């Protein structure tokens, strides 16, 4: 999934560079990438979402 996320980011950078008029699409893809990154972190830590320390 990390691979997929980097591909999305790469595509967004290309849009910024070569297709600046696709700003809305680029931003939405960046948001999707953020969500994917956050989801993967949550999947990896879902057994204890908060740090294992005295809060």
């Amino acid at each position, binding site marked *: 999934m990390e691979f997929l996320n980097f591909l999305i980011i790469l595509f967004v950078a290309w849009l*910024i560079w070569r297709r600046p*008029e696709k700003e809305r699409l680029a931003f939405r893809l960046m948001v999707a990438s953020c969500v994917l990154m*956050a989801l993967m972190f949550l999947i*990896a830590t879902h*057994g204890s979402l*908060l*740090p294992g320390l005295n809060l």
Partner: protein
Amino acid sequence: MTGISEARLRTVLAWAVVLLTAGPVGVAVVLGIAFGESPCILCWAQRVSMVLMALAGLFVLRYGPRPRYLGTVVLLGAWGSFMAIRHSALHLARDVGQGFAASFFGAHTYVWSWVIHFVVLVTLAVLLILLREDSVERGTRELGRTGRFALGLFMVVVGANAVQAFVSTGPPPFMGQGDPIRFSWNPRNWVWMFRGELRGAVTLRGAWDIPKPDPAHVEADADPANGPLADLSSLAVQAWERVSVPLDGRLTDLARDPATGRFLAVTDRHGVYVLDASLSKVEHRVRLDPMFSVDIQAPSGAAFLGDTLVVGTINKSYLLIRPDPAADEGFEWRHFLETSGGMSELRRSRFATVRARLMYVSSLAHDRAAHEMVTVSVPSPRQRRMVVSTFDAGDFVLASEFLPRLGPGLALGEKRTLAEYVVTGAVVEDGLLYAMSAAYSTLLVLDLAAKTVVEAYAVPSLDQPVGIASRDGELLIAQADGRIAVVTRPGTAPAAAGEAEGAAVADTASAPAASPGA
């Protein structure tokens, strides 16, 4: 007007993107591909977060400092900081040199991740403070030479990351690993995993979600016949006594000083009482201030250490208090909410355990012969085991810990474990630890040298036993309501227990824990 123009902002931002891309993200991918240094799944998420912050910077270079791009950077900075703290929490508190994976300039990557997210947030804040609003343009901007360099570098580095991610983590639905393996161009060495951790409940605290015990009330079956140890002999209650002075709160432990015959009683409202030998007169009294220092939760243990009183709490904190005719009441005001006077607090600190970590306790005893303090852990749904911990009574540092075994003559029921007992009171005499369990109203006798339960007795007719003290040949089992059952102290000689050590013993003190969190 002072400040910087948007054009200057974009130049600074372009260099910030270059720094972020070529610095942590670029170095990471070079280390990965050239030297085999592979990130774990948490590292991957933090690396992606840094890449996304740089990407948001490219948005600003192209479309100007619009709120949604700046907001995205703030959000990523905050989320990335959380990820770094969550990740670091796995390793920060371990012993010296016991970090995880590679370190640079004395800090591991998860610590650098937090530093980088923090620096990005600070940099953004400074730029926004300095930005002249009247210089902000509308529309799409030309990238300029620096912007094009930043974007080109970004695409090269992200492309390299994509290659590393494909090799190390695979295409969807495969994803990163908790314990990654070194990078290799050889497909035979590639390990792509679909995470088994997707199974299991979502929890906030995981292994730290330990319910706090009430030291004055244990929700458990009190019938010894239903306990894990079968066919126990009964100890008859010879007499009943009681604490005949009013206490502030419910009694949670009782100790007796063999030298003077005085008693020490503690309550769940942080009351500490020194009582005379007849339990009918208060010689000293304080109510502890539990705030403003080490966490002092409900007191659950009491012991005499010579003239010093030791009060233990369920969270393994302790206080040393001493009757002191010269006590300065003005000074002691900071320690006590109430005091009868003539009492000084010497120290408040914490017992540190290893096997009993993430477990509460509800007992405290002083082993005079070994000059050690003793606690017995309270089981929880996540930590189903009984751990006896001993601490040097000089420095209060851990001396030993063990899961008691079961001696000959004692048998557990099928699929039963010693960890079903909830020890709420403990006292040591002649090398034997007498541990009173409120669950199944059972007295366990442990040989501390042999680390073995050598005897166990049913003590029927008790209601919420919370403490136990020794008086000559008797044991005084205190209840939360202040009543005290007097029983004859079982007199197992340590020599007999030594025989048990050589006999076949079973590891019966633990049961499989509930599924631990990630």
